[in-house]
């Protein structure tokens, strides 16, 4: 048991440690020129040790040190009320609510499109190319237009942001579900035909359960990009809250720490949501006897 834990956690910790080491090295390297500049202007000499400590404690670093980001995150989560506009939890919830709504919309849309595509030749030929084309347009270019168009028909705020999430997240669901719903082999379909099963029963008893493993894989991708969509949706509106607004504010006022803490916060949220779907996947598939 403990050994298995070691085998799983040790590689992960090694990678994390390596990233942190590289990050610190980057901090020193990128922030050093400014320190040298300052020292030169003041006409003082900097020892190497002093240079290194200074690069990790700058107020406006080019690249903040990991512990600076950690402190910033700690101060804006644990030490602030969640209702405060300076709390990262408050901003996280604003983005997450749009993410989850958009994810739900995207998943429903994706499943419906996939069902249509596998049952209708016309839809297969007409819809699928557009589904693919929709994802070749850079989302940064199209997001402001979607927001503006929606605003003009009276939709703004949460729904507008969620629609950007939905725009991104329906795609992996369509692709995964088309593949999944088509995964039953001809023999299994023939079997249903010998029972004279209706199209609905073929779907419900055969295609849907066959597609579930594919669906979960798609959902993991979908929820992660739904979060990206919600953040992008916050950028053009000049939103008052959310990770996107936080990043935008940080860059207006040169507060690199705010940007980084929002960035890391978003990554943690994405990781947690993907992990949650992974847990649900395990539960569902083991209930179906598919997890060995």
């Amino acid at each position, binding site marked *: 048991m403990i050994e298995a834990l070691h085998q799983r956690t040790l590689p992960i910790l090694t990678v994390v440690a390596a990233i942190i080491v590289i990050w610190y090295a980057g901090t020193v390297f990128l922030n050093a020129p400014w320190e040298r500049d300052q020292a030169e202007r003041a006409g003082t000499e900097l020892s190497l040790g002093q240079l290194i400590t200074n690069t990790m404690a700058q107020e406006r670093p080019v690249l903040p040190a990991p512990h600076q980001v950690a402190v910033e995150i700690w101060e804006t989560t644990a030490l602030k009320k969640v209702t405060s506009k300076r709390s990262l939890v408050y901003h996280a919830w604003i983005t997450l609510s749009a993410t989850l709504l958009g994810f739900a919309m995207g998943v429903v849309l994706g499943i419906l499109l996939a069902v249509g595509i596998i049952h209708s030749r016309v839809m297969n030929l007409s819809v699928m190319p557009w589904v693919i084309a929709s994802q070749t347009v850079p989302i940064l270019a199209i997001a402001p237009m979607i927001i503006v168009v929606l605003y003009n028909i009276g939709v703004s705020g949460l729904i507008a942001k969620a629609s950007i999430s939905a725009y991104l997240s329906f795609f992996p669901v369509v692709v995964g579900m088309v593949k999944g719903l088509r995964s039953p082999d001809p023999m299994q379909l*023939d079997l249903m*035909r*010998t029972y004279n099963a209706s199209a609905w029963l073929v779907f419900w*008893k055969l295609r849907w359960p066959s597609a*579930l493993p594919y669906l979960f894989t798609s959902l993991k991708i979908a929820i992660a990009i739904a979060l990206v969509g919600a953040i992008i949706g916050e950028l053009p509106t000049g939103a008052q809250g959310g990770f996107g607004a936080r990043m935008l504010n940080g860059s207006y006022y040169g507060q690199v720490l705010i940007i980084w803490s929002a960035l890391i916060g978003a990554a943690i949220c994405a990781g947690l949501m993907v992990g949650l779907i992974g847990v649900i996947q395990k539960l569902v598939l083991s209930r179906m006897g598919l997890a*060995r």
Partner: protein
Amino acid sequence: MLKKADVETVIEAAGLELTFQTADGPVHALSDVNLAIGQGDFVSFIGPSGCGKTTFLRVIADLEQPTGGSITVNGMTPEEARLQRTYGYVFQAAGLYSWRTIEKNIRLPLEVMGYTKAEMSGRTASVLDLVGLSDFAKKYPWQLSGGMQQRASIARALAFDAEILLMDEPFGALDEIVRDHLNEQLLALWKRTEKTVCFVTHSIPEAVYLSTRIVVMSPRPGRIIDVIDSPLPVERPLEIRDSQAFLEVASRVRQGLRAGHSYDD
């Protein structure tokens, strides 16, 4: 041997033709197939790959459409017979649904056909008993051996009261020891249920051991070479395969297969 007059004809094909249009030109899967199968017969179809034996079974099951001739199943077209769920089909692979337990797999056709819950439980239990899998009802397919999976798929085909059992090389992927065992069980099952069985196989001993009639087929175009009414008694212990009568039938089948092959190369 003449067919007894009191035996009802269940499947009747006359001048049956089936041509597949492929990129390489037409393929004559079935050519002028004439055959009558009586109630309670155990008919084996044997022949090399491409002789149309599986195609013929699929035509009976309304999974392929003939391009000529006529065929009736229980006096109806194959489509009508399928809509009335006249037959159970056992495929080459067991094809059990991996997300259903053995019991639930057998319930599948019953769910599709709208049986009541009580009826489903009763029928599932009785066919599980029939194929000797009662202890494995709650297991998932991957927990069973290949032979047991195939037995479960036979149980699935027996669960609803189809009069005809169509079996497409059901034991083809199994080793010989398991196959012998299942052959014995299948014969016992056939005797008990008195169903009409159409059985496709590659194996001469299997065909001779199981069948009351053996249909020898040949490829390009797929056609019937010989129809042998088996002289073997109804009671068939495995040892019957060493008897003189058995060897004679096997030899006739082999001759038929060779004749069909002669102008093949």
